[in-house]
């Protein structure tokens, strides 16, 4: 496992780091101790040697080796460091060699060890063993006894009695040091072992929860949000575990939330789909019902068209069927009046004239009814041309001269601009004017005056027909354009008229885009004013005309 390897590696380094000083430091101590020990050894060797030198004089002088020197040597050997003592005479011959142990070879080596006389001390290697030696001469004043006694010191001479060589062995020191070294090594090893164990234990305390956490993360990935996690003792790891648990819970909550959102989204999508289906169904239903309605509409449209066709057919038939007998009525009346078949009496002539008039009246009615129905069905054909106002007025004069002459009436025509022209359906305009002038003629007394004035405005023409006739009562002015309305029931009998003339005038005016207005004062006269737009596509309306007129009168 990578993590364990990582931790072991780390621990190994730590142990190594701790192990180096734990080895180096005792080594340094031991080295130091060795030096100190050696110094001590040398010092004590020197001291012992000095003692031996001082105390060996007797023995050397006397030569009584066993008596003086041997006990001296043995006492020296009481020091454990002392390996051997060699007493030599003045000539360097060994007198006594005492060595620790019974090894004669060592004794011999010590006896034969001469060393370097210039060096009073030093290292000696005898038979592979290391020793430290201190050597020194034993000196004494040689003088006659007397002189000795008299203290004649100036005469005395110093002589060498012999040498004392002391061998000390560092063995004891080395043993101590060795023991110390082993001890240290043992302690170091023990320390390292303990440290490793401790490190391993600590590592395990860290790594196992970490491994658990890794495993927990794996499980978390697999969808387990509450993997078993033992409570670690390390505070940080504990914190980590807690944090992990919290995070896992948070993730679980988030996932739950997400799932619930997803569910909601799915539900909404489903709902939407349902709605869509529903909508489609509704659309289909609506389409169906629309189609049904459409079919109904088409049906009723066809019915209307059929009704319209039937109405037209009826009107055509009616017109035809009425004209046929009228042909005979009018024709025979005229024929008789012309006295083709034979002479007629004046009374008969009058009767025939009445029949003829009635026939013509009926014919006019039929024609006007046809015109009205055409206008109302929107089937009145219009043909717009430009018509000179002067020509129109002349035309009217010529047309009405005979009729007006009968009643000795005067037709006065004026034009604001004689060169003006009107762009309109002249047939309709003439019909309107003829109708209005006929009415004026009919409803005006003999020798009265009738005016036809043509005015010109910025966007419309004005045709005004004014008479000095009987006038129209104010309460009937409003219905004057309605069909079959003639002012005063009695009047209709004395005055000729179809009762459709003004209605037709009004309708024609409307399809020409104009306005037809009436003003009247009873017994004073009536004024009909026709306003026609200069541009037929821009129909005038009454309010506009009223305002224009008011403005006009205000100005003038």
């Amino acid at each position, binding site marked *: 496992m990578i993590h364990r390897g990582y931790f072991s590696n780390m621990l190994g380094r730590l142990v190594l780091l701790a192990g180096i000083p734990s080895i180096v430091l005792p080594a340094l101590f031991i080295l130091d101790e060795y030096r100190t020990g050696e110094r001590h050894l040398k010092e004590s060797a020197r001291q012992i040697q000095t003692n031996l030198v001082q105390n060996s004089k007797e023995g050397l002088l006397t030569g009584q080796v066993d008596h003086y020197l041997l006990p001296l040597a043995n006492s020296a050997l009481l020091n454990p460091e002392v390996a051997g003592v060699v007493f030599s005479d003045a000539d360097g011959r060994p007198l006594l060699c005492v060595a620790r142990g019974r090894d004669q070879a060592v004794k011999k080596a010590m006896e034969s060890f001469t060393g370097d006389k210039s060096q009073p001390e030093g290292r000696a290697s005898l038979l592979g063993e290391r020793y430290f030696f201190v050597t020194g001469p034993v000196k004494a004043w040689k003088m006659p006894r007397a002189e000795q006694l008299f203290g004649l010191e100036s005469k005395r001479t110093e002589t060498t009695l012999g040498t004392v060589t002391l061998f000390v062995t560092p063995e004891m020191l080395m043993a101590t040091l060795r023991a110390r070294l082993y001890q240290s090594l043992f302690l170091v090893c023990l320390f390292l072992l303990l440290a490793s164990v401790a490190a391993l234990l600590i590592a395990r305390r860290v790594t196992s929860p970490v491994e658990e956490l890794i495993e927990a993360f794996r499980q978390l990935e697999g969808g387990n949000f509450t993997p078993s996690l033992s409570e670690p003792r390390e505070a940080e790891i504990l914190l980590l575990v807690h944090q992990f648990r919290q995070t896992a819970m948070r993730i679980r909550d988030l996932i739950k939330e997400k799932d619930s959102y997803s569910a909601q989204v799915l539900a909404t999508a489903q709902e939407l789909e349902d709605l869509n289906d529903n909508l489609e169904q509704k659309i289909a239903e609506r389409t169906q019902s629309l189609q049904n309605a459409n079919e109904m509409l088409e049906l009723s449209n066809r019915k209307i068209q059929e009704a319209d066709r039937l109405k*037209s057919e009826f*009107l*055509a038939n009616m*017109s*035809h*069927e*009425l*004209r*046929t*007998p*009228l*042909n*005979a*009525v*009018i*024709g*025979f009346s*005229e*024929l008789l009046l*012309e006295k*083709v*078949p034979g002479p007629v009496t004046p009374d008969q002539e009058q009767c025939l004239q009445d029949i003829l008039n009635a*026939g013509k009246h009926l*014919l006019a009615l039929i*024609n006007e009814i*046809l015109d009205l129905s*055409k206008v109302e069905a929107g*089937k009145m*054909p219009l043909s717009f041309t430009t018509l000179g106002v002067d020509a129109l007025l002349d035309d009217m004069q010529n047309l009405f001269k005979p009729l007006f002459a009968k009643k000795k009436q005067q037709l006065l025509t004026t034009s604001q601009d004689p060169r003006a022209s009107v762009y309109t359906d002249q047939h309709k305009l003439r019909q309107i004017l003829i109708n209005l002038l006929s009415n004026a003629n009919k409803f005006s007394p003999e020798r009265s005056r009738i005016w036809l004035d043509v005015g010109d405005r910025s966007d419309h023409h004005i045709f005004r027909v004014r008479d000095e006739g009987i006038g129209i009562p104010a309460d009937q002015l409003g219905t004057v354009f309605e069909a079959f309305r003639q002012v005063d029931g009695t009047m209709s009998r004395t005055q000729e008229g179809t009762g459709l003339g003004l209605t037709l005038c009004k309708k024609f005016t409307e399809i020409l885009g104009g306005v037809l207005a009436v003003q009247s004062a009873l017994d004073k006269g009536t004024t009909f004013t026709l306003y026609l737009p200069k541009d037929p596509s821009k129909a005038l309306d009454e309010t506009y005309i009223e305002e224009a007129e008011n403005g006009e009168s205000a100005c003038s």
Partner: protein
Amino acid sequence: MAKVLVVEDNLANQRLVRLLLESMQHEVECAFTGEEGWARIQGGGYDLVLLDMHLPGLDGFQLARRIKAIHGQGVKVYAVTALAMEGDQQKVMESGCDGYFSKPISIRDFRTRISEILGGGEQLTTSTKGAGDG
């Protein structure tokens, strides 16, 4: 003096036209139906046929077409009709008629036009040729 055939199912109108034409010194023969009119025309010799367009059976339009198909400009055919609706005039002219009189007729106007049609025969034949072809 010309020979005129009046095809008219209404007796009063037939009489009126006959009276008018006779007062103008023309020879008049009458028929009540299209079939009768057609039979008489086969006999030949008419200068002018006055046709009511509304006839039982073979109507004025069909009759006018037949006459024009067989006799061409040899016989003038005029409609005397109470048809006054939009397009009626055109229909009448399309059937081959040389012209038409609207009912109710005005006798003054009728006389004038008959005189024109029959009096200036030569001139009228040429002037109505186009209509006959159509």
